[in-house]
């Protein structure tokens, strides 16, 4: 059965371009003629704070917030924040994760991402798909760490989890990203797509 509303949670750390990514996804859904809700959930800090954006689209979107266990996709730009918010994923849902950790400066606690993902998988009794992308590494190679968000968008597009065409993602990028940075974002999108096509599934 086709769901009435598609739910995507974006998480990461303030400054990683998550709000921009939310805008792009929202525009892409709008281009396809859906009703859209993009909700930004952030606190006081401009940089370095925990950040979550809820993107919903479908025929009619009511609540702008996604209920727990209702997200089809969780797009994590940072490891700790992705794990922190995976309670939004539905059983059978898909976590697309940037292999990248930003430690909070206030804590000396270190984490093991592999171990955490194993624990998540077993909490979901195996009923969860996880794709890992070296988005920040790819972005850095492109000379602009800020385009990790577009790498992730490319991966999301290639995985075909949502009823949005690649063309719409690209058109949305064009609408949201300033002209000066559009080229590198397109490049990032392409590399994100290829990363998934080569298979990064765990």
């Amino acid at each position: 059965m086709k769901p009435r509303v598609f739910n995507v949670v974006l998480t990461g750390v303030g400054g990683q371009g998550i709000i921009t990514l939310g805008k792009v996804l929202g525009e892409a859904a709008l281009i396809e003629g859906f009703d859209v809700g993009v909700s930004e959930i952030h606190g006081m800090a401009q940089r370095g704070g925990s950040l979550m954006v809820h993107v919903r689209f479908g025929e009619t979107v009511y609540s702008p917030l996604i209920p727990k266990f209702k997200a089809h996709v969780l797009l994590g730009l940072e490891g700790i924040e992705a794990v922190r918010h995976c309670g939004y994923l539905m059983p059978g849902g898909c976590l697309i994760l940037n292999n990248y950790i930003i430690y909070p400066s206030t804590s000396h606690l270190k984490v093991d991402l592999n171990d955490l993902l194993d624990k998540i998988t077993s909490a979901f009794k195996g009923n969860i798909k996880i794709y890992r992308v070296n988005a920040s590494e790819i972005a850095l190679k492109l000379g602009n760490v800020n385009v990790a968000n577009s790498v992730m968008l490319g991966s999301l597009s290639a995985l075909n989890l949502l009823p949005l065409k690649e063309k719409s993602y690209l058109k949305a990028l064009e609408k949201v990203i300033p002209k000066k940075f559009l080229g590198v974002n397109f490049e990032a999108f392409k590399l994100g797509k290829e990363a998934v096509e080569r298979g990064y599934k765990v």
Partner: protein
Amino acid sequence: MSLLEEGGKAVLLLGNEAVARGALEADISVASAYPGTPSTEIVESLASIANRIGLYVEWSTNEKVALEVAFAASLSGLRALTAMKHVGLNVAADPFFSIGYAGVKAGLVIVSADDPQCHSSQNEQDNRFYGLASGIPVYEPSTPQEMKDMTALLFNVSEKFETATLLRLTTRLCHTRGKVVLGDLRLERRLKGSFNRDPERWVLLPMNARRLKEKLLQKLAELKEFHTKFPFNRVKMDGDEDWGVIASGNAYRYAVEALQNLGIMDRVALLKLASVYPLPSTLLSRFLSSVSKVIVVEEVDPFIELNVKAIAPPDVEILGKDILPRKGELNPDIVSEGIAKIFGIKYRREVLVTIEKGIKEIENSLPKRPPVLCPGCPHRATFYEIKMALGPKTKKTIFCGDIGCYTLGYYPPYQVMDTTICMGASIGLACGLGRFTDDVIIALIGDSTFFHTGIPPLINIVYNNSPVLVIVLDNTVTAMTGHQPHPGTGFTALLQPSPKILIEKVAESLGIEHIDTFDPYRFREAVVRIRKALNYVREKRRPALLVARRDCTLYLLRKMRKQNISHEVFQVDGEKCIRCMLCVEKFACPAISTKDNNIVIDAGLCTGCGVCAQICPVEAIKPMGRGVRLDEAESF
């Protein structure tokens, strides 16, 4: 630029932008505000297009002034909007109540952006009560589309009833993007009106006020009837439902989602209320007479609930805050669970409960990520310098803080915040504590907050002589809300140059004798100047004022990027470093961390402020030669 796109198009707009567009479609001439989350983008987005269409927009010194400027526009026959965060209306409450009595001429919409959950506020007060208290009608939209359409309509309502209107939003509405179909727009504005003398109306002498109160009550009675036909109220009812649900604002959307998910939409009558004060009594009476039980779903306080209870027939059971929390923000889970319980439905399947337990455990093992000052933030340097200057006396010092990024000085390792209650209160509290205790008292206040409500208490400190050190953390811009200019910045919302009002000159004119400024990026000099000021206060028992002046780092870096100037990046010389941990544990810049027993600086995060290099006791932190050291540069 979607704010000026032509009518008929469907665009994605932030809730706040939708309000701005609605005001433009209603042909406003004036918008004024003091920035405050979650309301800021309303007037900010208007400012960004103002010069193109000849709209007048200003950042006012505070919400009271912003409301007075907007009211003056209305008196001149020009439509005006003012927007503020919920606590801003406390500051503007004085003119607000008087405007309730006097009414308006041209349409006036006052936006109150409430913040359930205190996402970025000191409380989650429910400003619908301000409507009840002042006699100004209150409206709650539910979607970005409604935010636009209702804002536009409220200007007509305002003129029809000669009353200001209060548009109550919540954080979630303000910060949700949604599809909005645009209406038509004129691309020029009327900027000059005329003020017709009518002192019996605009001079609130007791005799005039008494007469105006009578008129106000009459207006409210008329509005009550008008609200029965208010187009954004909606009823879904077959007539055979036992249960009714009344919901407003964003809570309405949660209610619909809950009723759908629980599969009980057909079993309830649904009333969506948009005109929440005065409540449309005829409409409500009709609704209440056909159901026997009602659930009220609304965000924060039981405003609708209490008013509905007051008019409901005694045999109708009204539930609201007994099943839904009065505290915090609602969400679809909370609303679903509350309603599910009443209907004896299990909301969450057993398997999900087990998964949730497992996830909670993993979550608890994760490092927390509290909000932090940005890398290079001058406030961090100032906090560190104050503690260095105080030395062991830090423990016997009371720090009266204020509202801004610097409130994060509360957190370890800085811990230089003993009080923070509201805008400007740092100086007021310090004034009292300086009188009533023998401790060293330091007031910490930002530049924008100083102009907002810091000046009257500073006068009080001088007038009633309290031995207090006031340190103004001047980052030259209203930083926390996204770098809006203020009276000390040197330009206006419309990017017109304006005189830079210097905080030290204000202090000087008040007769404060010890006034000094320092650059927090220059560590040693800053410590010396803070010590000098502390000594002055201790010896003379008189107030002193310091200005710690340095551009907000993000603001400065943005200016540099525009000029293609790159900034320096620092690194740690592992040979020289003695691992004293001063930079990691006491200075605590997010760019500095430990890795395998070494101190490392993240090149992507370092802003090149150079302060860590100055505090390192063995000079182990060195520039990499990538650009300008911020501590060696003036502003750009």
